[in-house]
Each structure stands twice: as C-alpha cells, then as structure tokens.
C-alpha cells in the first residue's frame, strides 16, 4: 500500500474517532503513534464501545473481544493496521 493511501486511511480513522466520540479537536492533531487510551487521547471504555460500533458500521470491521481491542486501540497506526488486516490489505 502506498504511503499516500496509508495516510488516507489514517486520516479516515482519525476523522471517525473525532466524529463518533464528539471530540472538540482537529483530527490532524492526533498523533499516529500516540496511545488512544490512558495518557494519550484519554479515552475510556465507553469510548471504546463507541469506536467498536463505529468500526463495524462504517468500515465493516468487527472487534470481537477486549484482547483484540487492546491491541487494535493501542494507537491510530495500530488501528489502521488492524483494519487493513481484516479487510485483507495487510
């Protein structure tokens, strides 16, 4: 996958995070490798549920359990890698 396409997916994921969680930040300010939960964006478990619903509805990607979620939600880069893997582009 080209760098441009990959960055495009990163941007889509950031836009999804900001829109679904109603964050009042510019999606471009989210760092690709920063943690989404805890000290990163400071998201919580309810936000995780919202992202799981959003990924399923908008990307057709399901996160079946917390273990998978822990890995996928590590950062934007990790989430993009997970989406690519499930969609067969990884």
């Amino acid at each position, binding site marked *: 996958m080209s760098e441009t396409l990959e960055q495009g997916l990163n941007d889509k994921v950031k836009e999804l995070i900001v829109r679904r969680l109603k964050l009042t930040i510019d999606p471009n300010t989210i760092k690709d490798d920063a943690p989404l939960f805890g000290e990163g964006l400071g998201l919580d*478990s*309810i936000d*995780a*549920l919202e992202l*799981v*619903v959003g990924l*399923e509805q908008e990307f057709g990607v399901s*996160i079946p*359990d*917390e273990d998978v*979620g822990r890995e996928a939600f590590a950062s934007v880069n990790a989430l993009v890698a997970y989406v690519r893997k499930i969609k067969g582009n990884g």
Partner: protein
Amino acid sequence: MSEGIAKMGVQEIYKILPHRYPFLFVDKILDLMPGKSGMGIKEITYNEHMLLSSPVLLIEAMAQVAGVILAYPLLGLGDSLGGERGLKRGGGDYAGYLIEVKDIAFSGDVSAGDRLILNLALIQKFGNLFRFDGRAIVGDKVVIKGELSIAVVKTAKSPPPPDNPPLPPFTKGG
C-alpha cells in the same frame, strides 16, 4: 438451536430485576431472545405521572428490558424458564448499570391508558459493555428512541429475595 421465550410475567421479572413498585416499569416481556432482543410491555396508569412528564423514566423502562435480555445468558438460564430457576434478586451475582444514552429523540406523546411497547435489540457487545437500540412505541407512533449502553459487573452475593415477592396492593373503589 436457540429459541426465544414467548412470554414472561411480572413474577418472573421480579426474579431477575431488583426493581420494585413504583420503580419497576415493565409489566411483562414478550418475544425474548436471550442476549439479543426483547419486547417489554408497560401499561401506563393515571397515577404514574412521573412516566408521563419526563423522558428520563421512559429511558429507564427501556434499560430495564435490556437488563432482562442480558440476565439470561449471564445467569446461565439457557432459553427457558423451565427446570432449575436459580434466579436471585438483581440477577444473582451480576448487576447491570445504565452508563450511557445516545441520540435520544422524544416526542412526548404518552398518556394514561397507553400501552407502551419497549423494543430493545442488541447492537454491539464489547467486553462487559452492551449497546442497545431502544424504541418505545404507543400505537403506531415511536414516542422515544435512542441507543442505551449497559455495563454488567460481577457483584458480591446479594441476599435471596422472598420466595413470593408481594405484588403492589390493590385498592378497592379507587
């Protein structure tokens, strides 16, 4: 094959939910698909003004139906009320909490005498969190709809309920 439960009366609901009159807002459950969906029925009476004046308790009514839907798989009851009924107050060793409501739309058209139909369907599960689509219908009108999230947590053992929890008293000539 998993089968649904066609009908559950208030005495069965008593064994699952900790809520009691006047804060139990489900009279019966129909078409229960354990862990997935169910339809709650609430007949609204003239003295339940709290249900008529605010959408908050209509949301609570939907959450109570969601609690029954979730209780079955948690309690290992399978798909039937027959056989061993090891139900305990408040769902045994589990408690469900309404943690989020989202995209609620309320029309306010609820009156005494209305039959409120509470349709709940699981959208997504993640860990101990469950997101439901909820719709309360009177006649052919949706009076409130939205998404509800329930967190289920394991709790310390609660005291067993009375064998036959009393129903609300009936007052003659009221």
